[in-house]
């Protein structure tokens, strides 16, 4: 057993867990934040992507114990005050999801892509940037459109914030 503590979506969380506990298990089973999903066992599908200290991480490949003191953001922590994050809104606007299972990880990975590459993303950059996220439903066509819109909106929001 090991004691873990971190902030998840802005709230301090801690627990005593089996030392083998993955971050995704800690989120889903201890904190009952079931929005982050497990889709594979080889770190490839990306359904488990969350942000740890501002960067995208596959939470299936990280021990909860190694997140001591970290700031973790999950899909549940994106919307602020009932208002959707522009990337979330973009996925709905562009029909970028069907069954929804890959979607939380896809959205978290997409936000990270914008954080790294900026808000003006061309199709090739988006497609390459989502290599770590598998979707079986959409064929990616509408996901690409969603990410392009979400990126632009994030850029516009940042500009507005900077101007204020």
């Amino acid at each position, binding site marked *: 057993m090991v004691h873990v503590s971190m902030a998840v979506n802005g709230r301090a969380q801690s627990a005593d867990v089996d030392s083998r506990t993955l971050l995704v298990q800690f989120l889903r089973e201890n904190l009952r934040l079931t929005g982050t999903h497990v889709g594979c066992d080889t770190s490839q599908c990306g359904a488990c992507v969350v942000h740890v200290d501002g960067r995208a991480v596959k939470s299936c490949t990280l021990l909860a114990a190694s997140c001591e003191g970290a700031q973790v953001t999950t899909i549940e922590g994106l919307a602020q005050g009932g208002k959707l994050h522009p990337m979330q809104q973009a996925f709905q606007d562009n029909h970028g999801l069907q*069954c929804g299972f890959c979607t939380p990880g896809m959205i978290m990975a997409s936000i990270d892509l914008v954080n790294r590459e900026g808000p003006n993303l061309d199709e090739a950059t988006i497609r390459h940037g989502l290599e770590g996220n598998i979707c079986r439903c959409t064929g990616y066509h509408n996901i690409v459109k969603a990410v392009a819109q979400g990126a632009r909106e994030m850029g516009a929001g940042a500009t507005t914030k900077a101007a204020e």
Partner: protein
Amino acid sequence: MGVTAIGASVKRTEDIRFITGKGHYVDDVNRPGQAYAYFLRSPHAHATIDRIDASAALKSPGVVAIFTGDDIAAEKVGGLICGWMIHSKDGSPMKAGAHPALAQGKVRYVGDHVAVVIADTLAQARDAAEKIEVHYTELPAVVDTAKAASSGQPQLHDVAPNNTIFNWHIGDKAATDAAFASAAHVTKLDLLNNRLIPNAMEPRAAVGEYDSGADGLTLYTTSQNPHVARLVLSAFVGIAPENKFRVIAPDVGGGFGSKIFIYAEETVCAWAAKKIDRPVKWTAERTESFLSDAHGRDHVTHAELALDSGGKITALRSHTIANLGAYMSTFASFVPTYAYAPLLSGQYGIPNIYAEVDAVYTNTAPVDAYRGAGRPEAAFLVERIVEIAARETGRDPAELRRINFVKTFPHQTPVLMAYDAGDFAAALDKALVLADYKGVGQRKAASAAKGKLRGIGISAYIEACGVAPSQAVGALGGGVGLWESAEVRVNPIGTVEVLTGCHSHGQGNETTYAQFVSSRLGIPIENVSVIHGDTDKVQFGMGTYGSRSGAVGMAALAKALDKIEAKAKKVAGHVLEASEGDIEFKDGKFTVKGTDKSIDFGSVALNAYTAHKFNGQELEPGLKEGAFWDPTNFTFPAGVHICELEIDPQTGVVELERWTAVDDFGKLINPMIVEGQVHGGIAQGVGQALMECAHYNAEGQLLTASYMDYCMPRADNLPSFKVDTIETPCPSNPLGLKGCGEAGAIAAPPAVINALTDALGHEDVPMPATPQAVWRAAQKAVKRAAE
């Protein structure tokens, strides 16, 4: 959002929970006091189980119970069934070997279920499973589809000599052979339809829970059809009577057919929950999904096409060996027979067809329906052989297709199917223009200048879906009817609940069904809820697969809405003091003809439930109607997909440069959702053509049992798609819908392989055309060109 229209690209209402992480999938279900199940699986493809010693495992920390096949058999739990009877040519019934939920005496594929460990935590269950000693005697395995029925092969089931399940056929052999004898040209083709693993992103999962006070059993399961699961588990497996058994399929993360079937794990979770009187939860690891989800395709086929001197196809004949795996899955026998061979006429007026299908057992995972289920196999055969025939006879592939298209409808094929409506030439014309087919010569030259090989390939597919007319299904051996149900409950203040027997696991039915009701009743879409997936809420239904939730599910809804409208008019007549026949209903208002006396839908609803304005004995209060819709025919989506790609002969890497699709789905409820279905289907078809293959070695070990080895398309493997439609309304349902869910997966593989072989100067490449396979073929093509 207001009142919506049919044909509008309304945004999906279900998206909100998915994009905020508030979806409710089976692994999100946690029941108080739940225990966790871990399945011990066979590491051998074929072996007898001589002894299972669980004594050490039972003492492992946290273990609640361990069960084996003998325990289940002792409780008289029935085996898993195949619900479709197929007869061989000699009239004998198919040879269905027993399929117990936990193996009895023998294991027949790697991943076969040997025991279940139930413990307080999953880690404890896993740790305990490692302590179970299973004494096996290994037997030789047979995995090769083409060889399974040869003499001297290891036999899987005593009831099936030579591992043969059935030898089936369809069509007129004598007439077909005669047509071949007099043909001007015969094209021959040997092809493989590669074995695939559906890989919905959500792994299968189940939670069984028993309420001993009420003698009520609940099963949460990742199912496309919870009522069918309840029916099979109740009637055939004997888990619990239907009236004491609730099956819930909540949010399900994709199915593609793989979640239709009734599996061992959910059966055991349901049974065990009652046995130990604690909830039992199981979730597949991805490798378990690879090993034990029903696989798809796996046909070995020899096909021949006969043409006359004018290029008209006079006959087609084929012989297929279909690998059904180690046990017959729930609908396994239907896929390579009635879902396959009746489509071998393609879009063409082929007067003579004869098809033989031999189904075999092998020491591999059971095979059953996977997106397209038989129709991709048929389309691949037809569209490859027609393409090759065009090249062999020096004809343009588009033109050979065009001269053979069916032009008048209805059209009776020689293999059961009667195509009801279509315009094959119109789709081809539109696709050729959108794809700039004429300009491909220039683009080929530009590619060649860069050292690349460019090719273009056409796929003119047709399929049969909207499954299906119940009498036809019964006559062909199906054990169920394939009608659908809908109940429309109008609430007193005018909001509406739709209870549908179809399921939504990505199809967007919560939006499209509500959109339809909104447009019919003239009420805002926010006032309509769509309920599905719970046998306690929806009385009965057949689920979602075979592209049926529009053509069949919505037709049932239309029928229920007709009844609602009729009753509402009666109520309105009383309220407006006019005769029922003088009431018109339009845009949400009931009006007395020729006057401005009107009342809106909400007021009619309130009146129906207060019953103040009419005699409740002459007209029953309330406004709630149900309907069952039994289709009169299959539906026949059809279209043309054109793939243009570029090969790098140095590496064998294939880049898809452009993709054009023109599909005829009849009327569209929500074009945005239809396009999404096409995109997803194309992606899976491209996966089959270029990347995916479930590969077993000679010992029956699955070598492609994770995403490390089984390659799935990523975003950078695919282009954006140009998707368009033509519309010939479907005559067999009131909405004119044909269905769209599987078309992309059916159309895509031959489009890709036709383009690939075009680029390679007709050198054939088997699926999957991986870079290694393409490179080899490119070397051969380059060598031939040099000669």
